């Protein structure tokens, strides 16, 4: 294998692993902050126990999110030196701003929150977790502004052998970034909603702390329903933006080979990229693909030379599965709310909710596969090819070694994380003070 493929594989492994922890952090920070505020507003001690119980799970997850995040910043320079040199004038700024605006706020006030129970007033304590939640979601904004620039480069000129920024405002207000931000953050909130739903269901099945977990379940379900609806709506806008800016990606997402007017969407479709066609196309919804793309005429992959097309099957399947899961989340969250009053008796639903915990994680990963694999062969769409972006100073053997290192280290961390999360999730909240 060459350095390009190895570096891509390493980036995929480390980014995907990092993104196991990020979505839960995005949503659970908000939920813990909400619970602590409810405690302050009502004086109901259950909400305090809730903030502490879910807060502990939040912290275990957060620790891994932080440490795996440093890898990402190092890797741009380590493995993608030509990319960093070429786009650093633009791409470096949102990264530095993310650290300055978000990471400091997040880490400092999380420290205050963990250790401050006896040192600051309850109001200030609740404020610190709200600041953590704000900062976490703010960091998503800046990293997605950076990523959106790779998808839809704006506000630059090519000068001095690189891309130079000429309009910071254009980079920050890139429509692509705004849609991507809301879509990604809301999907993180779905992860957190189902995390709370699933663990609450586990305890309700065991009739453990029924009051406590019914309250938790209601918060989780409401949060999951609202955010999964928003993911869908924003996703629709986002798809239209993709169709507008990245025609090869939208064509791969739907495996569309020929340019088509009033393009239908086939519910059953099997791509056959070797022969530039689909071997199965059945149950078409007339004009639906044109509606999704917001275009009367949708360009097919054949409009583009083969070397400029992304891998079709992977992009297509990831997109389909993500959308399918997204619809399932709305249904499940709705069911949990409808049946809420006697949910402790609906054991089948509770079991389904418990086993649904991994699904939003999978959907989030699939979304990133669509975004990043669908962008290939470009690292910056239309501007720089992935193959031209790697570090020339790095040998394949070095990347093999680091890839093996990451796989082993991250594998161990993953096991420890799942072990600790399930241990503390099962243990339940601290008993009520009498």
């Amino acid at each position, binding site marked *: 294998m060459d350095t390009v493929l190895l570096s891509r594989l390493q980036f995929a492994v480390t980014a995907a692993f990092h993104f196991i922890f990020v979505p839960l952090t995005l949503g659970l920070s908000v939920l813990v902050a909400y619970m602590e505020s409810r405690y302050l507003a009502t004086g109901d001690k259950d909400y305090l126990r809730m903030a502490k119980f879910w807060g*502990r799970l939040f*912290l*275990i997850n957060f*620790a891994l999110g*932080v*440490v*795996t*995040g*440093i*890898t990402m*910043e*190092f890797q*741009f*320079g*380590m493995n993608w*030196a030509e*990319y*960093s*040199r070429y*786009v*650093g*004038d*633009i791409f*470096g*700024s949102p*990264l*530095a*701003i*993310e*650290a*300055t*605006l978000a*990471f*400091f*706020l997040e*880490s*400092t*006030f*999380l*420290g*205050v929150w*963990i*250790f*401050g*129970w*006896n040192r600051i007033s309850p109001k200030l304590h609740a404020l610190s977790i709200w600041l953590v939640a704000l900062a976490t979601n703010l960091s998503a904004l800046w990293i997605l502004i950076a990523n959106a620039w790779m998808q839809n480069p704006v506000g630059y000129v090519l000068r*001095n052998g*690189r891309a130079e*920024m000429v309009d910071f405002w254009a980079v920050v207000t890139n429509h692509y970034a705004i849609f991507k931000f809301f879509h990604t953050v809301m999907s993180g909130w779905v992860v957190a909603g189902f995390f709370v739903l699933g663990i609450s269901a586990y305890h309700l099945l065991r009739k453990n702390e029924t009051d406590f977990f019914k309250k938790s379940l209601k918060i989780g379900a409401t949060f999951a329903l609202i955010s999964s609806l928003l993911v869908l709506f924003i996703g629709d806008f986002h798809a239209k933006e993709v169709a507008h800016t990245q025609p090869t990606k939208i064509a791969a997402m739907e495996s569309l080979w020929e340019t088509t007017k009033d393009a239908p969407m086939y519910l059953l479709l099997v791509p056959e990229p070797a022969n530039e066609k689909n071997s199965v196309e059945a149950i078409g919804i007339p004009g639906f693909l044109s509606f999704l793309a917001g275009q009367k005429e949708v360009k097919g992959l054949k409009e583009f030379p083969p070397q400029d097309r992304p891998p079709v099957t992977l992009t297509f399947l990831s997109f389909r599965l993500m959308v399918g899961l997204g619809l399932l989340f709305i249904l499940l969250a709705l069911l949990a709310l409808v049946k809420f009053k006697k949910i402790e008796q609906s054991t089948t639903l509770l079991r389904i909710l418990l086993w649904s915990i991994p699904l939003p994680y999978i959907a989030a990963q699939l979304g990133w596969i669509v975004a990043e694999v669908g962008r290939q062969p470009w690292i910056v769409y239309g501007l720089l090819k992935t193959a031209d972006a790697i*570090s020339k*100073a*790095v040998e394949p053997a*070095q990347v093999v*070694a*680091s890839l093996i*290192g990451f796989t082993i*280290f991250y594998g161990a961390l993953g096991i*420890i994380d799942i072990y*600790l999360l399930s241990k*503390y999730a099962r243990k339940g909240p601290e008993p009520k003070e009498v």
Partner: protein
Amino acid sequence: MEFQIIWFILWGLLWAVYFALDGFDFGAGILYPFISKSEMDKKAVLHAIGPFWDGNEVWLITAGGATFAAFPTTYAYMFSYLYTPLLIILFALIFRGVAVELRGKSTSEGMKKFWDFWVFVGSFIPALLFGVAFGNIFMGLPFDNSGYHGTLFSLLNPYGLLVGLLFLFTFIVHGGLWISLRVPDELADKAFSRAKNFWYLQAICAVVFLSLTATYTNLYNNFLKLPYWFAVPAVAVLCLLLTGFYLMKNKNGRAFVFSALFIITLVFSGVIGLYPNLIPSSIDPKYSFTIFNSSSSLYTLKVMTIVVIIFVPIVVFYQAWAYKTFMGKITEKELKEEGY
């Protein structure tokens, strides 16, 4: 003043603040297995750095981000040339962070021992290797326009290792002093006496560093050209002496302050000596990455300067508030309750 120079100063400042802050976390992590035998002691040492290490590490992330934003060419080549050593630092930092955070969540003795080991290794390796890295940057790295010609082992040369040891001992003193400020008395005395002992090693390394720098690097050239800049390393030496003075006087608060000032002035002495280079080439100066040939466009530098002027003071304000909130000894009640 030119924006490249402003960013060069900021670049130095970010590293200086990072080492002055995370330096005590590293030192505490290195002393951790040696001074704390009981479970309560271990909890206390981790608690002493608990509220801070993560916020401190963000200064490193910001230093990296600022290098990327302001000097992208340097960022690109420095990180790819130093691929393997950076990877080792990265793995160490990952395990340090996880170990500090998750030790308290583990109940089995085996897991606790595992994390104890990583608190130490994850603190020791970056403390040493950051020094080795800066030592090598002071000397210059062997690269020309065809690429980098060094290896992992060529970095472990005598001068690089000397700076590594200087960083290591400096952080141990710094960490020992920090622990002594925050933990219960008996443990604090232990940490303090370690700091005292390591100060001698630190001082010896500093003297050797000052003399060998003349033979191994070109850092003195800038000072000889403009001798008033000698004030900075002179202040560094003074701070080191005052650290020692207050250590002998058993005043840990003052000793800590001067230890922090020593770190900051030490980094700035190096940065002044490097100017205008970010990474000198040891093969030929014409290949060196300077703040002028590797910087971002003027427009980007201006935008980033505005961001920094607005937001860094805010960061400093709330981090200072957080430090103030947790200043002073950890109470027994806190040790038994939340956290680690």
